[in-house]
């Protein structure tokens, strides 16, 4: 069966979406990501959408769902690599992906996630 691979990179999960998304694939991906977070204790999820030529409300909803489910399981999601034409269209469509963190590249996304965990622990120390 067709499936989007979920790769493990240390404490992060890396997902590269390259195929034209349809319902079953999206649901399968939600299942896979949540299972991996739970199995591996991942604290971050990077979703690379640089190969996606469009993001419609269906894919937008899927990204928001994955980010929400991951957050509940203790992992932050960053969507990276959106093409400029996709960003223009998405906002005009009425979706600004509120609640989903974004970054320009996988590197920037990793910095955001790792930087975040470092800042997070510093905050805890200050509070203590």
């Amino acid at each position, binding site marked *: 069966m067709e499936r989007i691979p979920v790769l493990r990179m240390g404490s992060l999960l890396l997902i590269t979406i390259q195929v*034209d998304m*349809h*319902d*079953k694939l999206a649901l399968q991906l939600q299942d896979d990501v949540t299972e991996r977070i739970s199995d591996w204790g991942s604290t971050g999820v990077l979703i690379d959408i640089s190969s996606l*030529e*469009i*993001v*419609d*409300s*269906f894919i*937008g*909803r899927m990204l928001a769902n994955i980010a929400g489910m991951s957050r509940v399981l203790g992992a932050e999601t960053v969507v990276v690599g959106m*093409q*400029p*034409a*996709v960003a*223009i*269209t*998405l906002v*005009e*469509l*009425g*979706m600004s992906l509120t609640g989903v963190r974004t970054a320009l590249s996988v590197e920037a996304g990793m910095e955001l996630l790792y930087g975040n965990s470092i800042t997070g622990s510093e905050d805890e120390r200050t509070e203590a």
Partner: protein
Amino acid sequence: MSVQKREVLPVKNSNDVVLARQKVRQLAVELRFSLVDQTKLVTAASELARNALDHGKGGSMTVEVIVNGARSGLKMVFEDQGPGIANIEDALKDGFTTGNGMGLGLGGSKRLVNDFSIETEVGKGTRITAVRWK
């Protein structure tokens, strides 16, 4: 106004939505729409095809390359024999949904094209026409 090319595709399942997007992309490239305009057309096609599938229980998409004087454009017509839309004004509002989507499909698609019209009859079906000019 003349029609230079016409193709009809079924919209009966989730994979047909993918094929509908690919067809619109191909014609938009042939018409030399800019990348942003191509993206808008394909996104609108995706929303409207999914709308016909989820709310209209499936139907068809007709795409036409049309020419009006010096202007050319891409026209997409989505037809279904579903329950129809009881209140078009509500259906076009962002956030309005009878399904489990986000309610951006119709209103959002309207913003992505130049001409947009809905013909619908409750119990008979819906025809949505969307045109983007070059």
